[in-house]
């Protein structure tokens, strides 16, 4: 790989990069911010701060690389540094604790035959959304990045500053927790039973 030539963007190039590569991700950024903070004003501030930082540090963004991942990383860092502390929600389990509790080598794959694909497809948006929002922030984050935004494990590792192996195991845990919640919903709503309706 050739060495990256860092150079300063001209005023005009900055506008091109900002409007052409950063602004198109605003919907995804806001969705991420809202699902982190659960508050419209906090989410707005977080997105604004992120774009301000992106503008200020635009020279460290290399044109042609993944702008969305770059922006998500800034947003996630801003959230941790500025928002998590003053969050209105009581702190949920921290990932440090969570990952000490779960040994990342020993990932359990169990058959979830009592939750069926059909039941999941029949669920309303609110149920899925509530199940996602109910996850601890670090589990919620990996699901958002992987499933809502389609980032690869490698991109997620960069956004979150964690090894790929940790991405993989955290994502797996997160999906298991989500499935547990969905299973609960399915049971309480009578989905997933094979008997005919009367």
């Amino acid at each position, binding site marked *: 790989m050739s060495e990256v030539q860092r150079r300063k963007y001209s005023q005009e190039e900055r506008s091109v990069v900002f409007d052409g590569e950063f602004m198109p991700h605003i919907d995804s950024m806001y969705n991420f911010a809202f699902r982190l903070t659960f508050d419209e004003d906090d989410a707005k501030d977080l997105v604004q701060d992120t*774009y301000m930082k992106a503008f200020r540090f635009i020279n460290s963004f290399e044109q042609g690389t993944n702008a969305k991942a770059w922006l998500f990383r800034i947003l996630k860092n801003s959230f941790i540094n500025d928002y998590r502390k003053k969050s209105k929600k009581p702190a949920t389990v921290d990932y440090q604790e969570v990952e000490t509790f779960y040994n990342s080598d020993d990932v359990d*794959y169990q058959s979830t035959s009592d939750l069926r694909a059909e039941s999941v*497809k029949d669920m*309303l948006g609110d149920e899925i959304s509530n199940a996602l929002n109910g996850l601890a922030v670090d589990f919620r984050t990996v699901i958002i990045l992987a499933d809502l935004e389609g980032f*690869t*494990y490698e991109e997620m590792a960069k956004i979150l500053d964690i090894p790929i192996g940790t991405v993989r195991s955290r994502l797996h845990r997160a999906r298991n927790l989500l499935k547990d919640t*969905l299973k609960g919903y399915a049971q309480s709503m009578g989905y997933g039973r094979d008997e005919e309706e009367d």
Partner: protein
Amino acid sequence: MENTDASSPERKLQCSDVGKCFQLLERILDGELVEGGNEMLQEKLDQCQPCFAHFHLEQAIREVLKTKCTKQPLPDKLAESIRQMIQDAR
């Protein structure tokens, strides 16, 4: 063509290695390419009922997440106010 029946007499009802199989299926769904993944996937879907069910469940979850959790409406004027902030910062 993929057999889409929820159950098929050709599929075995016990998976010989749930851990390995499910991990493979999940990586394929996540777009993390595994060498020979497509052939292995097809074989599992054709021959193993737990793998078949797990694959479709995982796929359904990814789909509903993507279709139902990404529609948080952007507040009016957020984009505009960001552009304004950038203008002012210049």
